[in-house]
């Protein structure tokens, strides 16, 4: 699915050959301009375009800082930045807008203030909030959303959000809509990183390629952690994943990597274990680092990817964005390797695919709980908080809480008691339900066939 070409010709794209798929329509619709002659032809005019853009930067971490800095240097005047985190000491090895005295302050507000101080006429607004808490209209007011987020979940959420505002009614209206937001997503891990442009219904979206993201699970092989710890990290992982569940029997609930008491507890146990095996280097900050599954991060990769994202915004504004090779992959471990890739959309993508209808077969005697569980583990859906509505009636709502309490009793009822369908069908009955997920901002039609 990944074409390894530095600049694939337009005609080789799968997209154009598929009937019924949308033609490109966004900033880049006139964007074959990858030849040198088009670059500087009307510099003054294109710079004006960049300056009149409204850009949202989601995440004010290392990538966010670099994106903001570079956009401001390009003269972009209206920028908003949103982040819910505060600045920690371990951020200072790469986040260029912060310094020691900012530790503990809001990333978004500090970054916005730093930028305003440097560029007096730049209108930067910081929001100390989670993206998930903002209303859809907030996102609708930007032409480009650049994300320097640090989790796959937040990326998936933002991705589905873009499609929500791009698809007010349906595919047909999206085709004709004058407004199509573009998502530019950057990510780094150690000396490698990527930047990609997502134009709804034109290029592969985050959900199309969700398999490419590493599982955000434990980073250390369990046999090493339990049997032969060598590094302080192994001792911490042991304390967190083996000792915590066994000693607390759930009395303190699951381990919260941001809870100071929990961190202290893990630190104590990890120290003991490290002493047994003669390992040095267990510190509180390392405990935090391991528990919060911090991805290794350096200034250089983040600066490169951040600037690449900002450059993508400017290219988009100037109509010289590459139509096909929308994914830039970078690896700096062995020399310098930069590649532009084309990635096909996934036809079965639940967000943008034309074949995104889901069909699920189940026994009518199975309880609703089983269906909800299936939705959570479904390889394509991976729901977090699924809610089901059938014929305008809530069957199960995972949020808000009062509705959850009311619908919870349905969980143990067999499906064929809840859904009373076509009596004529002898062996099976088909129901069309609406599946929504408040965690992922997902809304889909689900065909449930009961046997």
């Amino acid at each position, binding site marked *: 699915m990944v074409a390894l070409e530095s600049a694939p010709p337009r005609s080789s794209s799968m997209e154009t050959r598929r009937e019924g798929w949308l033609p490109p329509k966004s900033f880049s619709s006139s964007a074959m301009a990858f030849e040198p002659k088009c670059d500087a032809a009307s510099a003054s005019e294109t710079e004006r375009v960049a300056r009149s853009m409204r850009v949202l930067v989601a995440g004010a971490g290392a990538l966010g800082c670099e994106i903001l800095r570079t956009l401001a240097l390009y003269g972009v005047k209206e920028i908003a930045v949103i982040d819910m985190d505060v600045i920690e000491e371990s951020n200072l090895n790469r986040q*260029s807008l912060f310094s020691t005295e900012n530790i503990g302050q809001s990333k978004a507000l500090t970054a916005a203030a730093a930028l305003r101080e440097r560029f007096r006429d730049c209108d930067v607004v910081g929001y100390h909030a989670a993206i998930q808490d903002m209303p859809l209209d907030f996102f609708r007011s930007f032409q480009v959303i650049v994300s320097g987020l640090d989790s796959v979940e937040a990326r998936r959420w933002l991705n589905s959000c873009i499609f929500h505002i791009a698809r007010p009614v349906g595919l047909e209206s999206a085709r004709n809509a004058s407004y199509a937001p573009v998502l530019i997503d950057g990510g780094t891990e150690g000396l490698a990183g990527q930047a990609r442009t997502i134009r709804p219904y034109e290029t592969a979206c985050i959900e199309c390629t969700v398999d490419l993201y590493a599982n955000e699970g434990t980073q250390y092989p369990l046999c090493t952690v339990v049997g032969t710890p060598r590094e302080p990290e192994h001792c911490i992982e042991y304390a967190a994943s083996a000792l915590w569940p066994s000693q607390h029997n759930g009395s303190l609930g699951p381990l919260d990597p941001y809870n100071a008491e929990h961190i202290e507890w893990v630190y104590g146990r990890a120290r003991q274990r490290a002493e047994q095996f003669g390992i040095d280097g267990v510190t509180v900050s390392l405990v935090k680092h391991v528990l919060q599954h911090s991805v290794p991060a350096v*200034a250089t990769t983040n*600066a490169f990817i951040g600037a690449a994202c900002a450059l993508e915004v400017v290219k988009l504004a100037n109509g010289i964005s590459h139509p096909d090779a929308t994914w830039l992959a970078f690896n700096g471990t062995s020399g*310098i390797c930069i590649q532009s890739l084309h990635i096909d959309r996934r036809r079965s993508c639940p967000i943008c695919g034309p074949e995104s209808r889901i069909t699920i077969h189940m026994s009518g005697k199975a309880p609703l709980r089983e269906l909800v569980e299936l939705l959570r583990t479904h390889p394509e859906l991976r729901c977090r908080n699924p809610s089901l509505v059938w014929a305008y009636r809530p069957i199960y709502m995972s949020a808000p809480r009062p509705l959850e309490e009311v619908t919870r009793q349905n969980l143990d009822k067999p499906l064929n008691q809840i859904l009373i369908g076509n009596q004529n069908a002898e062996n099976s009955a088909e129901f069309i339900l609406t599946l929504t997920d408040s965690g992922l901002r997902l809304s889909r039609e689900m065909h449930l066939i009961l046997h």
Partner: protein
Amino acid sequence: MLGETGPLEQENASCNPEEETPQARYLRQVSIWGNSAQRLLQHARVAIIGSASVGAEVAKCLLLSGVNDILLVDDARTTVADSEQNFFLPPEAVGEWRALALAQQLQRLNPFARIQARVGSARTFAAEWTSHQRLSIVIVTESTQSQVQLVADRCWEATTPLLILRVEGLVGYITPQFPEQILFQRGQHPGALSLDCLRAMRLIQPFETLTAWCLQRFWPLSQWDEAQLAQIPWPVLIVLARYAIQDESSLHRARTWDREIVRTQAMAAARRAPVQTSERNESFTEGFVEGALESPQRAISECCRVHDAVPGDERDPGDNTDESTDSKLQLDQNQRAEALLLEEIMERLREWQTNRRLSNWTQALAMLRRLANATDRMEPSILRFPLSFRDETMTRILRAIRVLSDQRGWPVCRELDHLSGDAVAVAALKRLYQEQADRDVEAVCEFLKSEDIDSVQGDLIPTHLVRRVCSNLFFMTVRRTRRYSFLNGCGASIPSNSERLPQARRSAGWFLALHAYDGYQESTTGVQGDADHSIGLLNEAQRLAESWGWSSDLVTPDHVRHIQQTAGRAEPAMAVMLGALAAQEAIKLIIQRFEPLAGNFGIRRARQYGLLC
């Protein structure tokens, strides 16, 4: 202008025990390259020539990463354009010297750093830099061609790595130059038990305490039941099998004895050809660089070939050619003996394995097979490189290790990865290796002290450097680039490799156009937009191509027109991107980890890429 701290002093400072624990600030990057690399970074001294936006971006990345000593060299005053293009030169700084203003602004990023500024040009820098002022790396971000060449020559003579980078509009390049760069590659392939790791464990020639412990703890194997056998760490099995073969002495004594003879002869030969030093290797340095830029693997084999091809009398004046051929024969014989021994051990393990399918057995056999299938010799590859260090310390350490290996074998690796089995046994095994590693380091230090050489006092060679070399011996490699020469294509050439040719040709066009632009601008003023200049530029680029021996159709009018139109236009993203890439390369060279860029790197708009080699 530069401090007087020598490298040894700096290294001593890095032994400060307070710094052993990872600092919270650098936690996220220490997990990539480790604490020792971070310490190297924090004791590095970097000179950056040019304080425009690219230079500022390089300095920014280095300061954030923990480089604490930076010298900024620049001879211009801040203009309004600077304040618009360079994030770290605010409007208030207009009129001030750029280097001074930048030093002041950058301090915020790293409160521990000593940022010095020198108002002067690259020429000033080259004149004031004396060889005893040790710099980790020099980065030139803007200067004239002649001054770049001057700095490049000084760096080459001082064996200091150099990065030349240049951004103009949407086009840019990085040219590295380092005559010799040792890489400690361990940690580059986490998770894989490499052939080098395997060799560094020294299971075929186990050290005494290892054999003794294995025997005392596990011998004879008949006392254990199946479940217990499955818990024996796999290296123990190899050591025991090796012991069992030797134990049947009456049958095999003659053969073993033969082997010992071969070994002694080989070692004697090796002693006659110690680590190559000094100037006379320069000649074949040049020869092998062609390959080095193509691919590291080829470079290594190329290097070995060249090295082997050197006639014996050139290698050591005392030897004659016959003897050298002899020693080569003996080395081959030695290799055959090793192979035979490996076969025997495998055979023995298979005998013991009958009816059992235990994973540790399978692993031991797999490891032996990997050793047997390896095509090159069992010795560390670092000793096969024709080194030409001015850094005599490193050369002497390597020579000492070579000599000592006759008596004691190669130093063992300090850390054992991927051992499974009984936790207590694994921990004990690790301790054994640590103790042996300490003994090895001690022996090398003793040897160095006892040596009677005037230039570097043996007891001045820092122990931690010896330790670093010993425990990385099997993982160390050497990388080189060509010497930078503007008259000779800046050390670049077009690869003949067809796979990368289109990209390389494309970047070569930009590379030529940009160099032509620079040269043209030095002689004329106001090249922007003018059609006459456009022709002049194209001619200049084609002339350059010819003088470098490149095909003149590499550069097209499009290239020239683009350069003309974008030159002088601020592309902040390009400065940030290329600055970051250069800083990353500088970090790799300082910490001596990861594969550094060894050829020319051309970038245009981050969408097309190409390597000129």
